[in-house]
Each structure stands twice: as structure tokens, then as C-alpha cells.
């Protein structure tokens, strides 16, 4: 889906701008790209479409598995290579984080249930008591599980930390570069006007 959206971006914006095709066609191409972005968002299961007139990113509520907030990135009609790199880096980081935390939290919940079940079984109790309420263990009994879970996932966390720090620095550095380029672009036309 993303490959198709990239293809449409190239066809709708880069090619017409090279060929000098008029603005009416460009506007309809922009509308087509916006429509495609909406389809991509819906197909990614985000269930939200940013309004057509919006030129900024949109951030959603926390995901129920990963607790991370998804972002729908705005694709400007004349996106430079640098801006594209930034957007792709952010998208990849988002996807990687989502995968990691969704899997990790699911494993935590599952292992916690299994632990509670095994402990209750050892004590000779059922998962639900007479009133139908779910039986729980005390915090001290759960502490064994927390310690065990943390030590089991220690290496996984170390690798994830390294990956996250690298991505975070790359994204922030790219953001800085994009901001600098935009600032220079904004200054240059003003300089030209002043010189004229």
C-alpha cells in the first residue's frame, strides 16, 4: 500500500512539475494523493482520516496493545528528498516501536495470567471465586513474577534501547536539517527581494 502511495506521489507531483504541467492538473493530482493517503490510513487500521485541508501530522489515542500513540504523517505535495528521508525514518521508528511494545505487552499479560493460574493452582484455588470475581495474588507474590520477567527480557531491552537511541538521534538530526533548509529557503527569497 505504501509503495503504491509513493508511486502515486511521484507520478502526481514530481513528473508534472518536471513537465511543467499546469496547476489545475497539479491540484487534481494533489487531491488524488490525499485520497490515497486516507485509504492508506484506513487500511493500516487506524480508522481515521485527517481532514483534506490539513497540512500537519495528526496524532491519535494510545494503541491498546503498545500504549504508543500512532501518527499519520503529512506528505507535502513538493516533498524534498531530505523531508522524505525524515518522514520515512519516523514511520519506520513508529512501526518498529509499535511491533516491539505490542508483542512485549502481550507477552507480559499472557505470562502474568499463566503465573497467577499456576500459583492459584498450587494453592488449590480457582481462577474465579464464589462470587465470580477474578482471584488475584498479593503484591508480594506477584513480585516474584516481576523479577523473573524483567531478568528474562533484559537482553531484549538492551538491544531495543540501543536501537531506539539510534533512531531517536537520527530523526532529531534530520528534523534539524529540514528545519535549517526551510529557514534558509525562507530567507533566500526575502534576500532576493531586498537586493532587487
Amino acid at each position, binding site marked *: 500500500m505504501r509503495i503504491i502511495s509513493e508511486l502515486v506521489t511521484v507520478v502526481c507531483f514530481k513528473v508534472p512539475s518536471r513537465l511543467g504541467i499546469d496547476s489545475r492538473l497539479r491540484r487534481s493530482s494533489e487531491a488524488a494523493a490525499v485520497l490515497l493517503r486516507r485509504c492508506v490510513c484506513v487500511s493500516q487500521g487506524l480508522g*481515521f482520516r*485527517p481532514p483534506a485541508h*490539513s497540512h*500537519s*501530522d*495528526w*496524532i*491519535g*489515542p*494510545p494503541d491498546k496493545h*503498545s*500504549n*504508543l*500513540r500512532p*501518527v*499519520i504523517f503529512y506528505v507535502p505535495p513538493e516533498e524534498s528528498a531530505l523531508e522524505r528521508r525524515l518522514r520515512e525514518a519516523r514511520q519506520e521508528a513508529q512501526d518498529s*516501536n509499535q511491533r516491539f*511494545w505490542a508483542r*512485549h*505487552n502481550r507477552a*507480559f499479560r499472557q505470562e502474568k495470567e499463566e503465573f497467577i493460574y499456576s500459583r492459584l493452582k498450587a494453592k488449590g484455588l480457582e481462577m474465579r471465586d464464589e462470587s465470580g470475581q477474578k482471584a488475584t495474588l498479593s*503484591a*508480594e507474590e*506477584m*513480585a516474584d*513474577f*516481576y*523479577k523473573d*520477567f*524483567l*531478568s528474562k*527480557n*533484559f537482553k531484549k*531491552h*538492551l538491544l*531495543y*534501547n540501543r536501537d*531506539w*537511541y539510534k533512531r*531517536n538521534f537520527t*530523526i*532529531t538530526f534530520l*528534523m*534539524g536539517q529540514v*528545519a535549517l533548509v526551510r529557514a534558509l529557503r525562507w530567507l533566500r527569497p526575502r534576500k532576493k527581494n531586498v537586493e532587487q
Partner: protein
Amino acid sequence: MSAARRCRPPRALAGLFALRLRNTGVQQIRCPCVHLCRVGDRLITFQYFNFLKRMYVTQYNKDLSQQAKPKSNSTVSPFHELQQLDQERKVVCKISPISPVHQSWSETSSRSELRETKSAAETEDSLTPVGAEFKEDRQWKEMKLRLDDLPGILARLSKIKLTALVVSTASAGFAMAPVPFELTCFLLASLGTGLASCAANSINQFFEVPFDSNMNRTKNRPLVRGQISPLLAVCFAACCGIPGIVLLTLAVNPLTGALGALNIFLYTCCYTPLKRMSIANTWVGAVVGAIPPVMGWTAATGSLDAGALLLGGILYSWQFPHFNALSWGLREDYSRGGYCMMSVTHPGLCRRVALRHCLALIGLSTVAPVLDITTWTFPIISLPINLYISYLGFRFYRDADRSSSRKLFFCSLWHLPMLLLVMFTCKKSVLEKEDKGDLLGESHDRAMEIRLP
């Protein structure tokens, strides 16, 4: 307080607010006290009293009743609740008496009961209604920075309350130094320390975005919610940190500047990554907390004396009962988030260290008059509060349960300001050494006036 009270919903609302009776979506009318929602063909309302406790109006079988939501036994940090309490104390929401609502409006309401989750209700800084915040949290938002939101966002990014605490410990260090008090130096040192702390806190939040998202205590931070971009957070940190350190180095003295820079480095590059690697992070964090009063002292005197180290030692020892007690209730979040904390990996050590350092506070208070920082009334006057925190530390060590950890944590919050206040009251002034007798008498009188809990 927790008993359900029957009350008819306010009549005045029907006249005050126009209810659009459309069938689609949820209409919300904002009001600082009362929040109305219409979901489909049901009308639900709930109101709350910010300064007391959250009360909810619920409807069941056409009867409207007002009740406080029962407190759930969640693992939310007591510190977080305290922050909330602080928030609640500050908000003065005057609610005028309201008359029952028009009968026809209640008849069109449905029989469903509204339940709000506690976690959705808790926010770090929100002053808007509980329900509105929950609904906003579920919505998609444009990632556009609004200038009027910026001060609030930056305050949360820099953990302004923690920064205020850090600045006050630095001021305590400055005040305890045995030199004549200079106001400009004091203000510059406080400002520089505050800026350095803002920078360090911002970088800490910049590093921890996905981890903060997964912990209840920290999930409403600005970077997690996308209210500010990481680039802006880093720029803000640079704009606070660099002027802060430069101010300390040039306007105060180079030693204080160096200590400030060291503290920023320790917090951002040592403590933050170590949190996820080893339990040694707690000791590094304690050093980070101990440095501000040392900075205050060096700002006043220009040198690193035994007095500075003693003050640093007191703050260092205090960190352990404070943090270990706090972390006891966060074990689930730490385990899931991948944080290496003593409370999870070495629970026995966690409690032993807390108790050990509570007792160390007694010892350090006794050393103060030996180093000529305070008079001998200080260890005597501070003994009750030090013994009390040691007793709570012992209870925590023995019982190892949530209630003892919470008691110890809340005690640590008032113990530190009180100890510093008593210390300042018992300060031995260098200039008045000839009037030692008078000074002792004076401080005795003042000390007697202090009411201990």
C-alpha cells in the same frame, strides 16, 4: 463521603446551555464545573468538585444519584496522586448552588450508568473536567504547536515542580553557607540552577518517550502526547542549559558552573541510560540529587568545604527512603517497562538501603554541629523527625507492603523541608560568634515554636 447521595440534576443547566438534540455523535458543552454529553439518544452528565473529590452524577432506573467513584486498587504511584493533590489544592472552583433540572430533560435520559476509568481521569496538569480530558485523549489531534499552549507544555517538559524543589535545595545550601548573605549572588545561583535543571529534565524526557508511554505515571508527558516535537525539546534544553551554565560560570563562580554541568551530564548521560541497565542508577540518581545544595554552598563561598559535603550527604541519604518507597508501588510498571530498579530485582536490598539511610540521617545531623555549621540544638530538635522517618523506614523494612511504603514516601516529602528549615534556624552565624549565648537562646526560642507532627 463515599456514600451515594440522591440529588436531582441541576435545573439551571437546561436554561444555561443550549442542548442540540441531534442524533449523531456526542455533543459536549464545556463548563468548568459541569460537563454534559449526549451520546446517541442518551443524556449523561457528571460534575466534579476539583478542590474536594471527584463526584459523578449517574443515572440508574431513571433515578439520578451523585456518588464518589470508589478508589480502585491500581498501581498508580502515590507521588502521582500527590501531584494531583497539589493540583487540586491549587484549583479553587467555586460552585454556586444549583437547582434541580427540568423534569422533561431527565425523562429523555436513558437508564445507563456511566463509568469513568481512574487512569483516564488522572492527568498531570489538567484543570478541565475529568470527562472532557478522557474524551480528548481518545481523539485524534493535529500536531500543530499553539503558542498559548507553549508555556504549559514547556513547564511540563522541564518538570517545573521538580525543578522548583531542586532550586529550593540549592537555596538551602546557599543559606547555610557561613558567609554574609548576598542577594544578587543568591538569585543568580538559583536562576542558573533552575535553568540547568530544566535542561536536564527536558533531555531526560526526550530520551524516554516510548518508555514513558507505557507507564501510568508518565504517560501524559508532552513528548508522549505529541504536543511538542523532539527537535523543539532539544532546542529548549539547549536554550536553558547553555545560558544556565554560562550564568553560573561567569556570574557566580567557575566551580558552581562546573558542578552544574557535571550534574546535567550525570543525569542525562549516566542516570537515564543506567535506569535500563543496572540498579546502580539509584546511587547515581542520589548523587544527582545531592549536588544542588553543594552548588548553593559553593556559589556563596566559592569553595568546596566540609559543610557543602555534609549538606550533600544529607540530601544523598534522603533520596533513598524517598525513592525506594516510591518505587515499591511501581514494580509492575517497572518490570513491564524494562527498568532495573532495586524494588523489582533486589527487594530485600531496597528496604535495607532505605532503612540504612534513614538512620544515616540521624548520624549526619549529629555531625553538623561538629563541623560548626549549626549549633548543638540542631541534632536535638531534629531528632524527633529523624526518629520518626527511621521508624517508618523500619516498618517498611519489616512489613514490605504498600501501606508502609506509602507512609514512608509521604513522610519523606515533609521531612526534608522541615529538616532544612530546622537546620537554617539553628545555623551558627560566623559574624555573631561573640554573641554565642544570645544566639543559642534565640534559636532555642525559635526552635520551641516549631510544631512537630
